[in-house]
């Protein structure tokens, strides 16, 4: 294994709960394997698309072929008349006055309400006894559209005569946006950038562009809605956040939340793309209408329309620096295309602005970030969430500045790197380790892959190892190596004053003569390994070996979303918290039953380890089995991270983020400049993870984030034509990296505890997505000398033809 775990080398206290290592097997810090692993390799793990119910119908969604149009009429009679069709629904059939939903603004119609605002917007639903029947019936629905002018970029969105896409906004940002086609705008002003610019010896500006990336999870949106006898509904679904879905679904159905019972089924990847609703309400509506179970499974084409994407962005930056390499100031303007509906655009804007400086100390800044409403596909959450776009731009600027100053790009970054105690542009003090310079040092110190790795022992070129493999035209003489560095900063958890919490219910009882813990949360396991870690936490805290993971559902309180790198922190924290409460109960019972036998029951700090109650000097006092007897200890508790606050709408100041996460990459590429072919030889990553609860999972997350960043760097983009129509909704035309594109990914992990977080851990899933992209592009720039201001970089950008 390439991973090295390092101890505390820099400031940062170790919380007391860490001072003693647990001896219980399979606890935190071990690379335990996934509890669902065997099911997954034998094909028995039930994903949402695998569900089946007797007598079930199949739902299908008719979508708009127009990006912006008025619906003048809908005729469903031919579809209804088709044999096998059980229901056809349009906006007029919605059961209540709540006909819209949304993560942040309630602006998304369940079914188009007279106007469609993007290509692929749902217009009507069909339920039939066979998916093909449903599909063909949908094709028989006659919708008359009257096309409306299309808003497709900043100029057309903010023009004097621009159509206002959401004329009656009542969201909490409506009052302070400069134009109704701006979803949200967040300025941040700190210090005096104009004044500080006068101290600069060099000033560097740049305009950068990030294409629209797709989450492209392999398991398309799907679920099964089963009508219940009580008039409610049971929904089995692949999602990232059961309770957020529930909050949006129930009012549309006109049902109280307790009558909408949701259970998580197997999730085939998420990456942010399942944070918004897709087919949830649709399946429920059809099930309630027909009285039969209804399954909806999107195909790949539809999936490209069925979820939000990463915001494409245009970013303008100005930095100044003194001759000795200190950044004087930064100004930037970040324009994100939010598409037709808000989704999580406001929070993406908050991230883009507050993280726009990167992990650097810059006291004088003038920042503006905004998201537009357009008729392009809606954009929202994707791994990295607003920080990805900014990181590509500020890291490109860092290289430009270093070059202009004649400095080494890593040294330049280190000179300006933030560390614990630094002040963010929002005025927030970074109050946990921020080992930015150290991460850069680690990554630079890693041995480089051998030069001319394509050269064989005999000195000839092995063309298969050259960029493009056999397509290469040279024998190595036209291949240039480049090395690039990047580092990024990502917030962990929900920010800006959001009441972010998770809930865990833990039971402890004796089953078959053994103490067994059951952990019940609503956390969505989407592949990140959350259930692995939750079981480890229960073992460590309760000293048991047997942990049962209860399926995630809405019978327990909300866990919040599997996003924002937050679940190990939040649901892990909730499980730890509930286990601690259980432990207190156990000790209470123990004292009651056995307290008179040993004075330590009253005087010592007691722990649960290896199935026993032990003292902090390892003296066993009683077996858990004996303490528990036939008692079942059952506790459900909410757990919160420390509160954050909203950013000031004018100055952007505020304690907005609960924790920051840092990762750095070094990319080594080889470029065939003649043909524009890039081969990434190695993408080394160093990350501070606070505490690796499961080192194997940590490495897996870093691998995955790195590969997705690589995809954005050199191949991934949803092409939206000027007419706002999506052009490439398939895996032949929207390319994602294969195993052949994936280089070696050596990983170095720092473990500098954050004293505010459970076990000192740091959310890890996103940070490496940020730095991977700019590192690869920096390496291509280093190899070619080209400016490359847009991702993805394609062959023609390198050949300049």
């Amino acid at each position, binding site marked *: 294994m390439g991973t090295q775990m390092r101890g505390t080398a820099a400031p940062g206290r170790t919380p007391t709960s860490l001072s003693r290592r647990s001896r219980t097997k399979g606890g935190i810090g071990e690379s335990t394997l996934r509890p669902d692993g065997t099911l997954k390799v034998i094909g028995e793990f039930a994903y949402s698309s695998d569900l089946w119910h007797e007598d079930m119908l199949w739902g299908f969604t008719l979508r708009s072929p127009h990006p912006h149009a008025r619906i003048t009429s809908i005729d469903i009679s031919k579809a209804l008349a088709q044999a096998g069709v059980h229901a056809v629904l349009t906006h007029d059939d919605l059961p209540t006055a709540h006909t819209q939903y949304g993560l942040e603004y309630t602006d998304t119609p369940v079914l188009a309400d007279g106007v469609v605002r993007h290509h692929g917007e749902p217009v009507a639903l069909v339920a039939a006894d066979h998916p093909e029947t449903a599909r063909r019936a949908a094709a028989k629905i006659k919708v008359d559209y009257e096309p409306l002018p299309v808003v497709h970029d900043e100029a057309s969105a903010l023009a004097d005569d621009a159509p206002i896409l959401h004329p009656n906004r009542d969201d909490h940002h409506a009052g302070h946006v400069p134009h109704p086609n701006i979803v949200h705008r967040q300025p941040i002003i700190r210090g005096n950038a104009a004044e500080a610019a006068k101290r600069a010896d060099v000033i560097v500006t740049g305009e950068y562009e990030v294409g629209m990336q797709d989450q492209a999870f392999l398991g398309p949106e799907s679920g099964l809605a089963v009508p219940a006898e009580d008039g409610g509904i049971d929904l089995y679904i692949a999602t990232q956040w059961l309770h957020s879905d529930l909050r949006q679904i129930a009012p549309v159905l006109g049902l109280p939340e307790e009558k909408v019972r949701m259970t998580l089924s197997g999730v085939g990847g998420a990456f942010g793309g399942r944070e918004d609703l897709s087919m949830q309400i649709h399946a429920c509506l059809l099930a309630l209408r027909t009285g039969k179970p209804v399954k909806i499974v999107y195909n790949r084409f539809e999936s490209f329309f069925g979820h939000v994407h990463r915001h494409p962005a245009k970013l303008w930056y100005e930095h100044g620096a003194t001759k000795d390499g200190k950044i004087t100031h930064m100004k930037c303007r970040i324009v994100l295309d939010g598409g037709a509906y808000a989704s999580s655009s406001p929070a993406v804007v908050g991230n883009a602005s507050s993280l726009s400086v990167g992990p650097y100390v810059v006291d004088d800044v003038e920042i503006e970030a905004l998201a537009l409403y357009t008729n392009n596909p809606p954009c929202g959450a994707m791994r990295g969430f607003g920080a990805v776009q900014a990181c590509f731009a500020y890291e490109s600027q860092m290289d430009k500045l270093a070059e202009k100053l004649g400095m080494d790009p890593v040294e330049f970054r280190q000179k300006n790197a933030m560390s614990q105690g630094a002040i963010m542009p929002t005025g927030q003090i970074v109050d946990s380790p921020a080992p930015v310079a150290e991460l850069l040092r680690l990554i630079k110190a890693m041995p480089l892959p051998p030069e001319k790795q394509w050269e064989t022992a005999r000195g000839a070129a092995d063309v298969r190892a050259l960029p*493009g493999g056999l397509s290469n035209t040279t024998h190595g003489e036209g291949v240039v190596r480049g090395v690039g560095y990047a580092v990024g900063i990502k917030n962990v958890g929900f920010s800006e004053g959001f009441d972010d919490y998770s809930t865990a219910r833990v039971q402890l009882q004796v089953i078959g003569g053994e103490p067994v813990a059951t952990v019940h949360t609503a956390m969505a396991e989407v592949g990140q390994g959350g259930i692995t870690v939750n079981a480890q936490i229960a073992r460590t805290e309760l000293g048991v070996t047997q942990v049962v993971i209860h399926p995630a559902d809405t019978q327990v309180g909300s866990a919040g979303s599997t996003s924002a790198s937050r679940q190990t922190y939040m649901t892990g924290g909730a499980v730890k918290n509930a286990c601690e409460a259980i432990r207190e109960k156990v000790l209470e019972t123990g004292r009651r039953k056995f307290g008179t036998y040993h004075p330590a029951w009253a005087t010592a700090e007691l722990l649960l380890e290896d199935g026993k109650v032990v003292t902090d000097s390892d003296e066993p006092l009683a077996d858990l089995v004996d303490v528990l007897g036939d008692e079942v200890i059952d506790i459900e508790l909410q757990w919160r991270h420390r509160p954050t606050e909203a950013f000031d709408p004018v100055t952007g100041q505020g304690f907005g983020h609960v924790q920051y996460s840092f990762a750095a990459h070094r990319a080594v590429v080889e470029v065939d400049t003649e043909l524009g072919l890039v081969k990434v030889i190695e993408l080394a990553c160093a990350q501070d993870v606070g505490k690796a609860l499961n080192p194997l999972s940590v490495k897996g997350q870093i691998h995955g984030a790195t590969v997705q960043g690589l995809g954005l760097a050199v191949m991934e983009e949803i092409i939206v*034509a000027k007419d706002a129509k999506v052009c490439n909704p398939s895996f032949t035309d929207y390319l994602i990296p294969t195993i052949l594109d994936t280089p070696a990914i050596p990983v170095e992990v720092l473990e500098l505890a954050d004293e505010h977080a459970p076990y000192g851990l740091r959310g890890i899933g996103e940070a490496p997505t940020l730095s991977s992209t700019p590192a690869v592009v920096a390496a291509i720039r280093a190899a070619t000398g080209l400016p490359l201001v847009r991702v993805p970089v394609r062959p023609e950008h390198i050949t300049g033809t």
Partner: protein
Amino acid sequence: MKTFRYERPADPAAAVTLVAGTPGARYLAGGTNLVDLMKLGVETPELLVDVSRLPFGEVEETDTGGLRIGAAVRGSRLAAHLLVRERYPALSQALLSGASAQLRNAATIGGNLLQRTRCLYFQDVSKPCNKRRPGSGCPAREGAHRDLAVLGASEHCIATNTSDLAVALAALDATVHLTGPAGVRSLPLTDLYRLPGDEPERDTVLRHGELITSVELPPPPHSARSRAPLMVYRKVRDRASYAFALVSVAAVLDVRDAAVHEVRLAFGGLAARPWRAREAEQALQGRPATEEAFVEAVRTELSACRPLRENGYKLALAERLAVAVLADLAGQG
């Protein structure tokens, strides 16, 4: 997908009769392209006639030292065939650079040659396309056409042929053997395909009911000095594998006494058919095998290119790729 009848006749004659007698009938072999397009609603056959088990599964040496390849041979099997690897390495390279191992295991040689040309708009039935619905228009010209044709396109269609195999076979002077309602006939592979003109819905010159039975290769060319066949297939794409060519080149070159004795050059990714570069070949015949000569010849060929807003980069790619391939082959000889 529309419903259809399925037949698996026992012999080629019965297959031909079935298809010839049904206007909406199509042959089915590996199905990797046809079934894909049927799912998209692009192809709507009413009868599928399965020819995958007809006796076209052999690869054999011909009397003249060439190779006859049965149309039902699977791509992966042909790429691994010893005679192909020894004598026609460019053919093996072309096959192995296409699609994925799974698709190569299913797709046949005949089916590969008859895959429909490709365009983002052709495969999306919600959009107009002259190839799919003649007269409905070609949004690709104004829209997304980065991967589309720069040679031989028409105002009606700029789709590209994406068969790697066809490009290699074009350079290898392959002949296609057909059987049909009017009997058997043979065509040079390059004549199998047609340019869109004002009938973009027709990719090939095949008549309804005609079936490819085999592909024949003449004996491989050899340089005077070695027995190694001087041929190569190279492909430039957006992703290192499992992606269609932006540009590809298949070339055969025999240099004797520093002059071009024999040259055959074909491009992929540039047109609705594999583009045999006959002008370039002619310009090179007998000339010194120098890089300057290669550049000049390839430019002559590519002067016919009519790029659009987004696909002009293909010219330089094609030129560089072809010149490098030829220079490489010249250096080896």
